[in-house]
């Protein structure tokens, strides 16, 4: 009787015991910091009179004030629009290049494939800040070798640190750094396509271009969805490139991207409460956008599958 009870207890408790370490780690290093950020975002500092001396400053409940302030702040919206414009360049160009490179590397006729693969991937290994610094120097007319050559050839010298040029300049850094990584992801899934599929296609008389368009791209669609998903998140969180270029030009303000505004609120203006609210808003927007996209992609896949099954 006793042994049976112990046994049943042990079986029931086992999953919880196994879950325990992960739960603790999740709570300590994920739920707790997020909870603290949310708590901070609902508070503000309140000072009395001149606010000098001890006890003049206290933390009080602010309700949704920080959120309404952030959402009505034109700078946050302007920053979001700037980031969308930046993303509209980065994501299609980067993924398009990655797909083209992956298809080319996967083709039978390519030579020096391992070297080329590495060469395209290498910029991904350069830290973002270093990449931004490197490109920043190349964008500055007075120190850039490109501008020197353009001047010698009497060609027009575009201003890459202002207006539309700035978007091109920032996008270029992201594309340069990110294409290699996305290419590897797509290339890996291309390699996983069984050789029989190609054989059958060739027997049916498909040209390499037809194979690429009608077989390879549909079969790597899941990787394309994945890389798109990662790229959206990276775009919404763009921070280090504009921050690194900021000291070089008047065109990048301290609130250029939403994340930069969070950084400015916390470390420039010492207002961690507004910064926390901004961070929560960005996190929610990122979640909604990225999971919205994933759901849309999944439902499309399911429809595709069921159609295929019906056929």
């Amino acid at each position, binding site marked *: 009787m006793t042994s049976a009870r112990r046994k049943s207890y042990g079986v029931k408790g086992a999953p919880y015991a196994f879950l325990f370490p992960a739960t603790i780690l999740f709570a300590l290093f994920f739920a707790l910091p997020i909870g603290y950020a949310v708590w901070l975002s609902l508070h503000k500092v309140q*000072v009395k009179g*001149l606010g*000098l001396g001890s006890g003049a400053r206290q933390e009080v409940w602010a309700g949704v004030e920080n959120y309404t302030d952030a959402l009505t702040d034109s700078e946050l919206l302007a920053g979001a629009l700037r980031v969308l414009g930046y993303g509209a360049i980065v994501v299609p160009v980067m993924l398009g290049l990655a797909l083209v490179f992956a298809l080319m590397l996967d083709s039978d006729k390519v030579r020096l494939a391992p070297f080329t693969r590495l060469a395209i991937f290498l910029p991904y290994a350069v830290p973002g800040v270093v990449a931004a610094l490197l490109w920043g120097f190349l964008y500055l007319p007075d120190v850039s070798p490109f501008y020197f050559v353009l001047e010698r050839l009497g060609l027009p010298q575009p201003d890459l640190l202002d207006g539309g040029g700035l978007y091109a300049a920032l996008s270029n850094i992201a594309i340069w750094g990110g294409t290699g990584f996305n290419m590897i992801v797509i290339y890996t899934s291309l390699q996983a396509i069984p050789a029989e599929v190609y054989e059958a296609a060739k027997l049916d008389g498909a040209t390499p271009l037809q194979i690429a368009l009608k077989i390879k791209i549909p079969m790597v669609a899941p990787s394309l969805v994945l890389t798109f998903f990662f790229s959206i998140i990276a775009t919404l969180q763009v921070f280090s490139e504009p921050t690194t270029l900021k000291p070089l030009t*008047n065109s990048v303000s301290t609130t250029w991207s939403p994340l930069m505004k969070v950084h400015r609120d*916390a470390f420039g203006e010492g207002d961690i409460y507004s910064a926390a609210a901004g961070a929560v808003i960005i996190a929610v927007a990122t979640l909604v956008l990225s999971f919205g996209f994933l759901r849309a992609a999944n439902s499309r896949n399911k429809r595709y599958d069921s159609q295929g099954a019906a056929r």
Partner: protein
Amino acid sequence: MPNITKHRRFVATAVVVALGATTLAACGGSDDDSEAQSGPAKLTYWTWTPGMDKVVDLWNKGPGKEQQITVTVKKQASGDTLVTKILTAHKAGKGPDLVQAEYQALPTLVSNDAVADIADEAGDAKSKFADGVWQQTTLGSDAVYAIPQDIGPMMFYYRDDLFKKYDLTVPKTWDEFAETARKLKKEDADVDLTTFSANDSGLFAGLAQQAGAEWWTTEGQKWKVGIDDAATQKVADFWGGLVKEGAIDNQPMYTPAWNKALNTGKQIAWVSAVWAPGTLTTAAPDTQGKWKVAPLPQWSSSENTTGSWGGSSTAVTTDSKNKGAAAKFAAWLNTDPEALTALAKEGGIYPAATTAQTSDAFTEPPAFFSNQADFYTTASEIAKTTAPSAWGPNVNVAYTTFKDAFGAAAKDKSDFGAALKSMQDDTVADMKKQGFEVAE
């Protein structure tokens, strides 16, 4: 009824007891402090001054050894970054004992209750400093929140050789400054007298100070924000006008392009402060011995004032368990002749203590200005004319809005007055949001 009276009396007693307990606790706190002072004390000091560890060694081997007070230096990043770090550490109750703080950061630190009042321990330090400098550490009260360390009186730097080449005279007033810039543009369209840079708010604050601006003042228990006052408007309009007509450049300083412009003579003057030789040495190494220094141009020829750009002090934190010992060290560091000489030699600072400005450490000009033997005599004369400054509890907010608003205005060559207004509005809005009483 009797029950209620009894109840009231109980409440009253409870209040008295509670108050008494607070008072006792307060006494207990200060007792602890004085007790700790007599024993050996180990202090940590956050500073960004290069070579500070060598200066602190002098203390640890000399007066510190006698008084059993050992100081350890923890090197930090300078300026605004350190303020954030101090506030964060203070929030966690883990602040160091001593911090280096720029003058404009002191009200923020005081308002966050991060630095302690050391009026009792500061002793006769006050007499060692100019009134305008000392006043920045008291915030106009009886308290003393820091001991001044270095100052940054603003001065006008120019390429002597190129001024001769372009037949320019050193401007004595801002009107002459504008004329010089225009004349230079006519001589050579590729060369600029200087640039208006929006990436260091301290420069603009110093220029406004020279014009007589008082950005933060108090009226009873209310703050008054005067960023948009007549004096600052005058300064903003002046620089905005020069940028708009293209008489000077509008690109930020401290960039590789700026370094190159200074080094190759594409920019031939710099409105800066006494610490400029250090910056020029790294930015424009090929121009050694070609620069000269003069007083800042004035708003009218009868005036003789300058603003300050930079400068810092040593403050004792409220987290320190050895405030007395820390205050003793801070006073020694910034008033003792031996310490000041070492600070000047190792740290390259320009001391706030008036006697130190003419000490042995400052008989020779900096190596970069070997051509101007009277560099430091000129500097100490200029330092005496420093206008008082008035800082408030959210200088950080005003400074970040300056960078964005004036950066955009300089880029678009648009109205600097509008940029100044948004700086004023944002600063006032932030103070109101925090609950400060602000007089309209």
